[in-house]
């Protein structure tokens, strides 16, 4: 005999602590039979009554949890905020640090620069998953074992400073610095690893190598100064007129030499121009130079105008 009630009891008792299982079984069976009888007395047939009673009692696992006073949550309100804070703290720097270290090791020891970035990202992701899993596991165990942890009480002294309204926020600054560093790194990089090769399969720099003894160091210095400007901008939190002036100066210090070199055909490596027939034909090279200069001029003008407008808005 294996009635629905038997099955329901078995399902419920499976997750009830063993010492009380038998007693609960007897009592619950009697209660269920009482309930069925009560419905049958109202004129229902017993099969329907049984179904309805068991449906009313609901999911057996939930009932068992109520009997065992067990929590139906992974991490409850006691630990949730601590869990969240710890997780945020760890995830904010550990995966990135590990990723960078692994990437650097791969790049130096493995002699595989392209693979290094991938290896770094994979390592960072793995570390992030591991951190999330283990921290959550520890708190889930705490939630269930319920030790009397003396977690520090919250006090008003922990209140953070109210955020100042910033024009320049951290992600923008970080993005700008990363871009500047990558760009500055690309200048020497292209000398050794450009995407073009010469007739013998050797590397063909994109920029004229002669510039290394003249303008390229200046451009690199301007890029480094731009990084410093980004930092200063972030510390100020907003555009000020001195920042606008320095920004304008640095923009021009970069754009004017580049435009002038481009227009006088001294920026690109002559061997590179030689290699691409299309560049040599007619006015093609001049057209490329003109379009680039016009585009750069617009970008610079926009940047200067944008900074000036923001500084103007900040006037007291």
């Amino acid at each position, binding site marked *: 005999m294996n009635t629905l009630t038997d099955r329901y009891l078995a399902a419920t008792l499976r997750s009830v602590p063993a010492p009380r299982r038998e007693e609960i079984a*007897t*009592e619950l*069976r*009697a209660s269920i039979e009482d*309930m069925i009888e*009560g419905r049958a007395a109202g004129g229902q047939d017993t099969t329907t009554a049984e179904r309805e009673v068991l449906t*009313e*009692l609901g999911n057996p696992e939930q*009932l068992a949890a*109520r009997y065992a006073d067990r929590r139906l949550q992974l991490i409850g309100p006691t630990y949730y905020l601590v869990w969240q804070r710890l997780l945020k703290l760890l995830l904010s720097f550990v995966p990135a640090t590990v990723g960078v270290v692994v990437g650097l090791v791969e790049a130096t020891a493995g002699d595989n620069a392209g693979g290094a970035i991938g290896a770094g990202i994979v390592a960072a992701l793995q570390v992030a998953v591991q951190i999330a899993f283990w921290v959550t596991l520890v708190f889930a165990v705490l939630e269930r074992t319920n030790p009397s942890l003396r977690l520090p009480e919250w006090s008003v002294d922990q209140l953070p400073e109210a955020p100042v309204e910033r024009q320049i926020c951290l992600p923008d600054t970080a993005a700008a610095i990363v871009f500047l560093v990558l760009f500055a790194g690309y200048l020497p990089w292209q000398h050794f690893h450009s995407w073009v090769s010469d007739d013998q399969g050797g590397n063909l720099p994109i920029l004229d190598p002669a510039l290394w003894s003249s303008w390229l160091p200046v451009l690199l210095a301007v890029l480094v100064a731009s990084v410093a400007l980004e930092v200063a901008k972030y510390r100020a939190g907003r555009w000020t007129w001195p920042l606008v002036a320095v920004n304008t100066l640095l923009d021009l210090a970069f754009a004017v030499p580049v435009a002038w070199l481009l227009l006088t055909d001294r920026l690109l490596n002559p061997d590179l121009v030689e290699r691409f027939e299309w560049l040599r034909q007619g006015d093609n090279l001049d057209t490329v130079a003109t379009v680039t200069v016009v585009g750069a001029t617009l970008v610079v003008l926009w940047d200067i105008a944008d900074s000036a407008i923001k500084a103007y808005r900040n006037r007291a």
Partner: protein
Amino acid sequence: MVSDEILRTHLQELRRGTVVVASLVALRRPDYGYALLQRLSDHGFPVDANTLYPLLRRLEDQGLLTSEWNTEESRPRKFYRVSDSGESVLRRLLADLAAVHTSMTALIEGADR
């Protein structure tokens, strides 16, 4: 106009604590699970079976109820009744319930003025 959902949650919150008080009062006279369920709902305290049965066991674990098996009837039944400590807890709870009622009445009258 608030939704039925919101109203139902608030009613549930309001009723939650009264189930324990009502059960303790009812069990001044010994009774078993299903009969108690019936009595409570007859007196306007509709309780879900899956809430009441585990609750009785919890109150027993806390020492507020004592129990005794009755095997004379057609099926064995566990009869619960209020213990001495359960009775003193119940008195405190009833006093508090009365205090809540008094305060609420005073508040309502005060608001009318």
